[in-house]
């Protein structure tokens, strides 16, 4: 469902205003609205899932209730709705000594970074807002926009903890972009395209055509990519920018209410984006694992979503199992382990395609 198709459809629907600017704006706004819904619903579902996953791993039941109106609904299903209402009605505090303009701007910058990236994420054979010919490059570029927001938030709060958090996140995200990007280069080398749909179409024909199983170097590349994006989205064991036991709340120490929830929203949106790229780039996207079965359009969306959900679940699994790394160890892993291995991967894949491809 690209914007072009929408525009053409609107043109036939309202012939009087054919090719006018207004229709173009409408054609752009419709997918934006849909995307915003996707982000919001994603956050609500993910927060609930995170609560439940963490609870189950810790021998608890998590949010529970005895039906609508009492506590949080059956199995606590309404817990996130209640949370959202609470955040919306909370007092919005801006510290007196904060840089007010940047302080207000920061959550939006982060959110826009995550939000804009979703445009190029394919959820099915036709379910994509815009299939750029540089899709994967675009997502990487937009994904790293968030770091500006984090630094802004850390700096403008005028709080030492926030400053620490902002500085740490800058170092961390910039470093981990590199192994993540280098791992995706493996994908690009194999598929010889930057378009997301092109990458997915390359992996047609069952699970052994997926890039992750295509050769051993790609297999390693997937894990490096995945761990790097966990670091990029600031999740445990790489959550040093917020590190609640050290930096109180890191860059969002001073934020409250809805502004704070924007950080949260964009964290989950980011998780969605990076998992989608992982699923599309390595796990066959919307292709079914068995060729020929469940391969229709609707099933495509199902396969894509289930792969994304699986990757997000693994991220949650990490978070509730591992301790947190120290900032220099984080850098060590990035520069001394991931970077060399991903460079070797690129050479390896090159030779592999030369010899076997």
């Amino acid at each position, binding site marked *: 469902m690209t914007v072009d198709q929408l525009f053409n459809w609107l043109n036939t629907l309202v012939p009087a205003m054919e090719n006018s600017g207004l229709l173009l704006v409408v054609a752009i706004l419709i997918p934006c609205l849909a995307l915003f819904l996707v982000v919001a619903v994603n956050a609500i579902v993910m927060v609930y899932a995170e609560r439940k996953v963490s609870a*189950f*791993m810790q*021998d608890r*039941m998590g949010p529970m209730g*005895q039906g609508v109106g009492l506590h949080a609904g059956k199995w606590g299903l309404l817990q996130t709705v209640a949370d959202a209402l609470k955040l919306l009605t909370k007092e919005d505090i801006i510290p007196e000594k904060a840089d007010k303009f940047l302080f207000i701007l920061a959550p939006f910058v982060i959110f826009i970074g995550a939000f804009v990236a979703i445009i190029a994420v394919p959820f099915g054979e036709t379910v994509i807002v815009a299939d750029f010919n540089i899709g994967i490059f675009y997502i990487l570029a937009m994904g790293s926009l968030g770091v500006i927001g984090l630094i802004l938030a850390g700096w403008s709060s005028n709080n030492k903890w926030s400053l620490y958090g902002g500085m740490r996140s800058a170092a961390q995200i910039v470093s981990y972009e590199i192994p993540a990007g280098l791992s995706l280069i493996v994908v690009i080398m194999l598929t010889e395209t930057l378009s997301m749909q092109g990458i997915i179409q390359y992996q047609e024909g069952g699970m052994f055509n997926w890039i992750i199983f295509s050769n051993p170097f790609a297999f390693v590349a997937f894990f490096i990519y995945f761990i790097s994006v966990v670091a990029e989205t600031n999740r445990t064991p790489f959550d040093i920018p917020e590190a609640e036991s050290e930096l109180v709340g890191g860059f969002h120490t001073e934020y409250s209410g809805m502004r704070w929830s924007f950080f949260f929203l964009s964290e989950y949106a980011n998780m969605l984006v990076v998992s989608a790229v992982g699923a599309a780039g390595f796990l066959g996207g919307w292709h079914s694992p068995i060729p020929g079965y469940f391969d229709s359009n609707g099933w495509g969306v199902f396969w894509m979503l289930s792969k994304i959900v699986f990757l997000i679940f693994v991220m949650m*699994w*990490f978070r509730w*199992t*591992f301790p947190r790394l120290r900032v220099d160890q984080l850098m060590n892993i990035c520069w001394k*382990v991931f970077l060399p291995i991903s460079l070797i991967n690129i050479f390896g894949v090159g030779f592999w395609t030369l010899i076997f491809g």
Partner: protein
Amino acid sequence: MAKYFRDIWESVSTMMTGMGITWMHMVRIKKNNVTLQYPEEKWPRPERNIGFDHGNYNVIRSRLHVDIDDCIGCLKCERICPVQCIKIETEKAPVRGEDIQDIGHIGVTSNSSRKALVVTRFDIDMTECCYCNLCTYPCPEECIYMTGGPNAHKHPIDYEFSEFDRSDLIYRFAKPGTKEGMEKMLNEDGAES
């Protein structure tokens, strides 16, 4: 170089072990769950208790309660309290061991000791109470006790006594009107003689 790869292997293997443990806990949540859905299920946990009966408890530290009809006003609990949260005032009864109808005073305790004093004030400030249970031991009539547990037949357990106003946490156990009634009675006696 060997150390480099050993470190990587160690990291991967120990982390997989940890992830295995959390996974096993997640899939066995039905069996492993230890929490209580509080307002619906209340302590003591009915099926997941740790192997002994509620009645076997020696005592349960919950809210203090006084059976004022049994209190002889000996002030032992007031004296032992380390934080002085018990305040007792007594008045000499006109006749030892006899009921005074007007103020609902009962002259003989359930242990059949005859009271010489009328307790006109028995306040326990539960905001100050440190739940040390010291006041319950010296009581000769066992009329001050912590609710629930072995005392459940005297008073059911009460650990949910939060209030909106702090002054509501001062429990006044003396029967309302005792003080005024006593004063009035003494004044009348004085006027007659």
